């Protein structure tokens, strides 16, 4: 229908579109995506006749498209722009017919005709607009969008271009608009959907065209791609081959499965699995075991006919045969090439009734039994490619763990309602977050729940010897029970049976063996129902051990990473800041040691003076680096005292030097409660910066006075230089986006020291100069 051939458009030196070739067929929605500036709007404006391409052809149904907006509309191409171009104060009907008030005489009649046409139009769009007489300004975003679409449809376009139709809409309205768009597709309109919303794109588009930097970098069928791939195309990040990517996607999905609630994840799983396998009709059915009978319960499905869903639900325990049941029983992948070959299979008949031809069922195996089935239906004879089988197997293993865990929790819950507390603890223990208080808390809960006197968890060390991991003992008898546990462990290690007042559950985990042991008082026998409880608990502990191990590894990795970062940072700073004084020190020291020159004493003395001065400089630098880390870690301690601020400033100014450039206006004295070294550092850094980063001849005025607020003093450093970079101004003013460590040491110290004194910084800077006002409290802060 609409056809673009090698369309290019240039704005000055910028190539906005480069050789874009794109086709949109009748009854097809093509989504156009890309970053801002990728050329989307230029492309739309070229089609709409609003811009004329440098070269390339745009045609509709084989005829070249006009080059004026009206001409293009007349050829059947309408655009709904993002700004909609509606008149706020006119009502819906008037907006629809704006500019088309055709020659019908007699306002009343014409109005009635327009109204009825409008109502018809909205009905055909399947849209509800509350009141055709309502002014646009009182409509919601979705209703406005609908009016704009309706207005475009008045031209009966063959091609409709929608520019971000859902950008400003809520969920419900967005859904309505998408349905309307799908309705238009059903009417045979060719639709170009320009959108930032990948959700929309994946909901309705048949194909996705991706623009990047004016080039068409992707044009793919929606069903054959994944949002991640599209994002990769949009951003220009290298796209990997699908196999590896799908594997990773499934891995992350499995992680989500173990981390999140099952019900919320399985639908997601189905969608992703469907994409990965490229199979459109899928379902996951959980196997419920009750009284030795198993039933299938649908958990999530995609595009399964209702009839099939019902048939699965109706499958009762005693129904003989059936390919789903076979797969549950055998635990093996069952492929039914043609459903018609099966007899007396209710699910198969239901599927055939719905026009399906083949099916397969892939069991998700737990440790002992089939936990669930992944079932796919096909419109053709069923066949699974080896890659697909591999993906299925991989996914099944990972899903099994998740389902098992939830079943474990479920079983525990059912086993003993009164043990809610224990259950919660165990669930947390096996859950994604590390339990606060860890295993001991869980053992406490187990001890209370099982009514035993002591509970302990042992794991083997690297030699295979059991060592205690955690324990919980009823208060009052610690020594006796500790001895009992030791005895019992010795028995277990010796391969003996447990004693009557003890329940022991041994299990293996990735790092070796473990024992969960519960001991009752000598005269109490453990109740019969505690054994399964403790075995269930042991399972939770197994998961908790694994999780702890993973968390440790993660923490270690993070710690190593962090310490490397600190090391790098220190090296960098030491490198830059300390090497210069060190060079002078080492250089002059080695100078005096050279045997080939005999230096006069006056020279030697001068060298030593320089060495001493540079050593002092280094000392100050190291102190500043320490201060900086202390600020960074929040451990800076100020050395407060009453000090003469005027003297401090004069000292600071003498350190900076460049007296010719400075104008001082200081009172005769002003005493404040502060850390004089740090305040001196503030002044040195601010004045030093002003000197260093401005051209020669810049005047720097330093003035000190009490503030309008009598509790504060006000130190002002103003220059007529070139101004500070915006990020620095914003950092000093305390609202910066950059991280602390992206600023220089001096700047960080100024900000940190002022804040540590309870003061404020107020920085204004233009390219005619900078004015920095430091306000510090005069008296000690409460």
């Amino acid at each position, binding site marked *: 229908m609409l056809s673009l051939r090698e369309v290019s458009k240039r704005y000055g030196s910028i190539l906005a579109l480069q050789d874009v070739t794109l086709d949109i067929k009748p009854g097809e929605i093509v989504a156009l995506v890309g970053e801002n500036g990728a050329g989307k709007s230029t492309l739309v404006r070229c089609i709409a006749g609003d811009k004329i391409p440098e070269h390339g052809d745009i045609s509709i149904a084989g005829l070249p498209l006009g080059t004026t907006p009206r001409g293009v509309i007349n050829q059947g191409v309408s655009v709904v722009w993002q700004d909609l171009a509606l008149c706020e104060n006119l009502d819906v009907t008037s907006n629809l017919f704006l500019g088309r008030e055709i020659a019908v005489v007699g306002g009343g009649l014409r109005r009635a005709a327009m109204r009825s046409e409008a109502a018809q139009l909205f009905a055909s769009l399947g849209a509800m607009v509350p009141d055709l007489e309502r002014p646009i300004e009182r409509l919601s975003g979705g209703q406005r969008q609908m009016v704009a679409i309706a207005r475009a449809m008045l031209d009966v376009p063959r091609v409709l271009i929608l520019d971000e139709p859902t950008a400003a809409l809520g969920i419900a309205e967005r859904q309505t608009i998408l349905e309307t768009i799908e309705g238009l597709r059903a009417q045979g309109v060719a639709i170009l959907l320009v959108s930032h919303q990948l959700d929309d794109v994946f909901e309705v588009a048949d194909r996705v065209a991706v623009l990047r930097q004016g080039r068409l970098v992707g044009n793919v069928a929606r069903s054959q791609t994944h949002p991640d791939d599209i994002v990769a195309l949009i951003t220009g990040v290298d796209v990997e081959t699908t196999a590896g990517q799908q594997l990773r996607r499934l891995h992350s999905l499995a992680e989500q499965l173990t981390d999140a609630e099952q019900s919320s994840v399985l639908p997601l799983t189905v969608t992703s699995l469907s994409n990965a396998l490229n199979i459109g009709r899928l379902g996951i059915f959980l196997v419920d075991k009750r009284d030795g009978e198993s039933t299938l319960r649908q958990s999530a499905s995609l595009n399964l006919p209702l009839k099939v869903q019902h048939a699965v639900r109706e499958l009762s325990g005693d129904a003989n045969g059936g390919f789903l049941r076979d797969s549950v029983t055998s635990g093996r992948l069952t492929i039914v090439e043609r459903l018609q070959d099966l007899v007396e299979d209710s699910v198969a008949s239901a599927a055939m009734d719905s026009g399906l031809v083949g099916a397969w069922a892939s069991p998700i195996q737990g440790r002992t039994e089939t936990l669930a089935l992944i079932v796919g239906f096909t419109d053709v004879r069923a066949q699974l490619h080896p890659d697909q089988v591999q993906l299925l197997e991989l996914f099944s293993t990972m899903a099994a763990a998740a389902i098992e865990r939830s079943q474990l929790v479920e079983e525990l819950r059912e086993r003993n309602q009164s043990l809610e507390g224990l259950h919660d603890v165990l669930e947390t223990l096996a859950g994604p977050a590390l339990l606060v208080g860890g295993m001991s808390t869980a053992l406490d809960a187990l001890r209370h729940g099982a009514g035993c006197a002591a509970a302990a968890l042992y794991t083997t060390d690297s030699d295979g010897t059991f060592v205690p991991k955690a324990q919980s003992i009823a208060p009052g008898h610690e020594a006796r029970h500790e001895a009992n546990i030791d005895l019992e462990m010795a028995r277990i290690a010796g391969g003996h049976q447990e004693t009557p007042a003890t329940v022991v559950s041994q299990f293996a985990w990735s790092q070796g063996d473990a024992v969960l042991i519960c001991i009752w008082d000598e005269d109490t026998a453990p109740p019969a129902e505690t054994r399964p409880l403790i075995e269930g608990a042991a399972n939770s502990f197994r998961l908790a051990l694994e999780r702890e191990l993973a968390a440790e590894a993660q923490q270690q990795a993070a710690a190593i990473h962090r310490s490397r970062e600190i090391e790098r940072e220190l090296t960098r700073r030491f490198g830059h800041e300390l090497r*210069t004084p060190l*060079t002078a*020190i080492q*250089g002059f020291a*080695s100078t005096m040691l050279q045997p080939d020159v005999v230096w006069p004493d006056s020279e030697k003395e001068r060298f030593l003076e*320089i060495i001493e001065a540079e050593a002092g400089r280094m000392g100050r630098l190291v102190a500043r680096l320490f201060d900086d880390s202390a600020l960074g870690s929040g451990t800076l301690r100020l050395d407060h005292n009453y000090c003469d601020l005027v003297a401090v400033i004069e000292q600071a100014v003498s350190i900076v030097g460049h007296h010719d450039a400075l104008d001082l206006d200081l009172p005769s004295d002003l005493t404040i409660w502060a850390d004089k070294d740090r305040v001196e550092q503030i002044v040195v850094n601010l004045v030093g910066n002003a000197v*260093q980063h401005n051209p020669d001849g810049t005047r720097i005025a330093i003035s000190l006075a009490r503030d309008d607020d009598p509790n504060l003093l006000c130190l002002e450093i103003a220059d007529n230089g070139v101004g500070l970079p915006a990020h620095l101004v914003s950092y000093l003013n305390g609202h910066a986006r950059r991280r602390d460590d992206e600023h220089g040491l001096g700047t960080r110290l100024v900000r940190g020291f002022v804040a540590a004194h309870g003061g404020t910084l107020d920085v204004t800077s233009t390219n005619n100069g900078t004015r920095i006002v430091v306000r510090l409290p005069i008296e000690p802060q409460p």
Partner: protein
Amino acid sequence: MNATRVLVIEDDPNIVDLVRSNLTVRGFEVDVSTDGEDAADRVRTLQPEICLLDLMLPRRDGFEILRELRQEFAIGLIVVSARANEADKVRALNLGADDYLTKPFGIEELLARMTATLRRTRVHDEEIDIQQIDVGNIHIDLESQSVHRSGERVQLTPTEFSLLRYLALNKGVLLSYDALLREVWGRGYENSREYVRVYVGRLRAKLEDSDGPSLIVTEPRAGYRLVDPEST
């Protein structure tokens, strides 16, 4: 012989003092530029034999100065910098520095490196029997220290020339990294294989045709040899 003239581009007054004191007392003539803004002009007028260049200067990027100086002059160029990482070092060598000295340094080391670089800039002072070497389309005149490629003059830095000279005098012979470092760079450079790699790369870029046969052949893990492309 006149005193060797050195241009020091360095902004820290104490380091300037350090270098000046030590070089002056040893008979060098020392000029200083504290910002490097006039570096090229200074080299043009003063014609120093060697230049010590700090990379971190208040107003100009030291790498920029290095590039500018190397484009125009075949003097010895030693970078003296607080930037201690390998990447900066290789970058400086690639831009044509003859050596790279990391701060802090002892005076002995500075003097040793200057001596080594000066030795390379003065190869023609040594006695050689052979005056001209031809390898393929490359003509090397050892006396005038000039190199022509297919009749066109090729500008080489002192270190580049020194390396080419050694390779050419041993045409066809495999020269190990150690031998090259010892002969071309001198003592104290035994562990600086990156110097050889960088300079072989620079020579190849100047002397070989991108699609033609190799003039300098890499013997993996062993070293390099100069071969006559026409004879292979």
